[in-house]
């Protein structure tokens, strides 16, 4: 018998309560036991627990709209903790087009089953075409429709990257990409902009939610205050050069190597993110350290409002 809340039920009863007839349940147990060469009696409890909501790892649906998969690649770069550990031990990734084993109908079914179950974390990468639904179709359906459906029964919604948060670059194209701020107007969405999402912003937010079951404190644009509180310009290690009026004009001159990039179009003075402190790629480098400057990719008016990038 298994303790579930106040009642004590048998594994079969739990399965039945979750819509799995006793005969099917025993079949599943038999298959699992046979596959792994285990005694059937040792697996019934685990199978029942896994089937009962709350007993299993939190389900995650990751949708891709008008995206480039850069945020997915960014996430896969997590080293501490390793991305595989998150994928295998912490979450149950039910749907992610770039990662999952299934394709076609099976992929669609995995998605529908999870949506029906509800209570999942919804991660969205990529924008929603505002000009015409047909600019982004998945499984024969408009991406917009899929997003609205998935958002309705999600426990939390996280928009990753510039495109999914505020529209990003696609917002300036003829397909008129919309971020969730407009595509899901009125819903609470945790926005993790930057193009692509910073892996530590994403992993930290997911772990925070899984641990506390709460949405972190957000700023006026729906960004976690913890990551987007400070102006890049205020934490920039070239700020001294800025104050001294030393502005880089020639990338070949080693003397100018650490000078301020304002004349190369740096958007640090009006961009909020902790990039200068956290840096990118496990602290190896980031936009200003590499001499290119900040393009303002964490701000709602990126890209159109930041263009021309080098002026």
């Amino acid at each position, binding site marked *: 018998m298994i303790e579930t809340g106040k009642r004590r039920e048998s594994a079969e009863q739990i399965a039945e309560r979750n819509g799995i007839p006793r005969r099917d349940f025993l079949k599943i147990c038999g298959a699992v036991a046979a*596959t*792994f060469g285990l005694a059937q009696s040792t697996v019934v409890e685990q199978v029942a627990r896994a089937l009962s909501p709350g007993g299993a790892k939190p389900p995650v649906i990751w949708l891709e709209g008008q995206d*480039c998969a850069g945020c997915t690649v*960014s996430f896969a770069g997590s080293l501490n903790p390793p991305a595989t550990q998150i994928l295998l031990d912490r979450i149950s990734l039910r749907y992610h087009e770039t990662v999952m084993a299934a394709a076609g109908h099976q992929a669609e079914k995995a998605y529908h089953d999870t949506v029906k179950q509800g209570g999942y974390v919804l991660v969205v990468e990529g924008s929603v075409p505002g000009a015409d639904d047909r600019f982004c179709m998945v499984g024969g359906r408009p991406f917009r429709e899929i997003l609205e459906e998935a958002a309705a029964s999600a426990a939390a919604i996280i928009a990753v990257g510039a495109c999914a948060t505020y529209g990003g670059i696609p917002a300036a194209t003829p397909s008129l990409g919309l971020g969730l701020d407009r595509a899901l107007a009125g819903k609470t969405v945790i926005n993790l902009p930057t193009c692509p999402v910073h892996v530590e912003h994403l992993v930290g937010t997911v772990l925070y939610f899984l641990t506390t079951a709460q949405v972190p404190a957000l700023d006026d644009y729906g960004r976690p205050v913890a990551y987007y509180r400070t102006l890049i310009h205020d934490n920039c290690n070239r700020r001294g050069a800025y104050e001294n009026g030393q502005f880089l004009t020639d*990338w070949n001159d080693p003397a100018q190597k650490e000078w301020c990039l304002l004349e190369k179009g740096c958007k640090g003075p009006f961009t909020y993110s902790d990039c200068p402190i956290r840096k990118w790629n496990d602290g190896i*480098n*980031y936009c200003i*350290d590499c001499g290119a400057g900040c393009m303002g990719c964490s701000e709602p008016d990126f890209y159109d409002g930041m263009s021309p990038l080098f002026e």
Partner: protein
Amino acid sequence: MSQRITIDPVTRIEGHLKIEIEVENGKVKDAWSSGTMARGFEALLQGRDPRDAPFVTSRFCGVCYSVHQYCSCRALDEAFGATVPWGGTLLRNLAMGAMYIYDHILHFYQLSALDYIDIMAIAKYDGKDPALQAVKEKVVALVQAGDTSPFTPRYQPDDWCVRDPETVTTAVKHYIDALQINAKARNMGAIFGGRTPHYQSLVVGGCTQYPDINMVAKYRTMLDEIAAFVRDVYIPDVLHFGTGPLWPLAEMGLGGGHHRYLSYGSFEKDPAGTNLVFKPGVVRKLNLGGYEVESLDAGKITESVEHAWYRAAAPQHPYDGEQVFDLDRSGAYSFIKAPRYDGQAYEVGPLARTIVAQHPKLLELVQQGARPGVVARHAARALETQAMVDACYHWLDLLTREMTRSDFRIHDTAHWDPPESGQGAGFFEAPRGALGHWIRIENGEIANYQAVVPSTWNASPRDEKGVRGQYEEALIGAPIPDPENPINAVRIIRSFDPCLACAIHLIDPQTNQLRRFVVE
């Protein structure tokens, strides 16, 4: 009786792809490939500061990030009249080499391997290797918990799936290890690229990251670890699978397609650019006993929109053609156009480059009976990864020497400001194949921007003559014994490493002026 099967979405690829196949007597009789997402980046670029283009086009794709940035820089270099100092080229190549290595490894382990192994065979592993036992425990725990996402659901393993418990367990361990190695390779690229995905430092005229000796040392140390993985794990795995359990698929030549191959060539190994990592060339007719490699004439490229959602037009050179969008066009089934070389459909990518280069190892496999197709594509990718590792060491040595020169330079500062007018073409071999960007500048702004990308070549729909694209052709004849389980179809498509987001681009109808580019 024939049956029509739709696979939508095709997963474990970049972008949104739908594949339809008609199966008769257990074999694919006909096939259709459709790109189902579009954004319209080229239209966005019109009227912008040309220096935005590398940054924006990088976002065509976040998996092979920055290949467009690199290619765009080359188009801009020409249009601005900039001469990239050798130091700048070395930095660009070192950044891009890191991306290449990660991208090929990712394709084999994360995007493809699950099609070739029966992951559940792990449960039967009874060897003593503690690392493999740990993998077994992990997967068994997932199954006992009744939650094996994202490894299930999946297509049922077929006769060609590897079921040997030790091989499968090793492969899954390498799947996990590869994720870490990939992350490290991307971090390595960020040393000179600024950050990843999407580099920041690649600009017209060169690179913004002034290097120092610590960076070189750091890159070298990271490269050592990655090179060891490529040498000791990735290449042996591909050869083990390819010449072992998958040899029947190799002999069968599953997914061969048109057997025509094209490469633009790229990655200079010397300042004059005479010695390249990837050679340019065209193979019109593949005779496995010995074949001719012709030189490439980019003027022979045309694009057909017969079956794409654009206004009807005759096939034209991409830069003369109009690109007005028509979502209601009858007979159209894709956002992807159909590029053709001298009127014929070609394959681009690792297999094409390896065949154009007449790589001795590939020819050796052919001697033993392998036919170009799915397995050969995986082998070609592994061979290139080794070539890229070697090139990165070579570039590091050259950079170290270059940095000691008193006139060491990384950027052409004199050509940083956009010209009043100009035009330029950039050619590049991206991991997925031949890539070209074209820009025309007027009044210091972008007047027109075009990209013809690798997956446009491979994933194209039929042309005006009804000739199938390479994906479509490669599917013909593939064994599909069970229509519910079309695993061979996804094996074939994934062997090309589809990257759809960049294959699709469109132009605003309002700005549909005459486009004429000189292509050399």
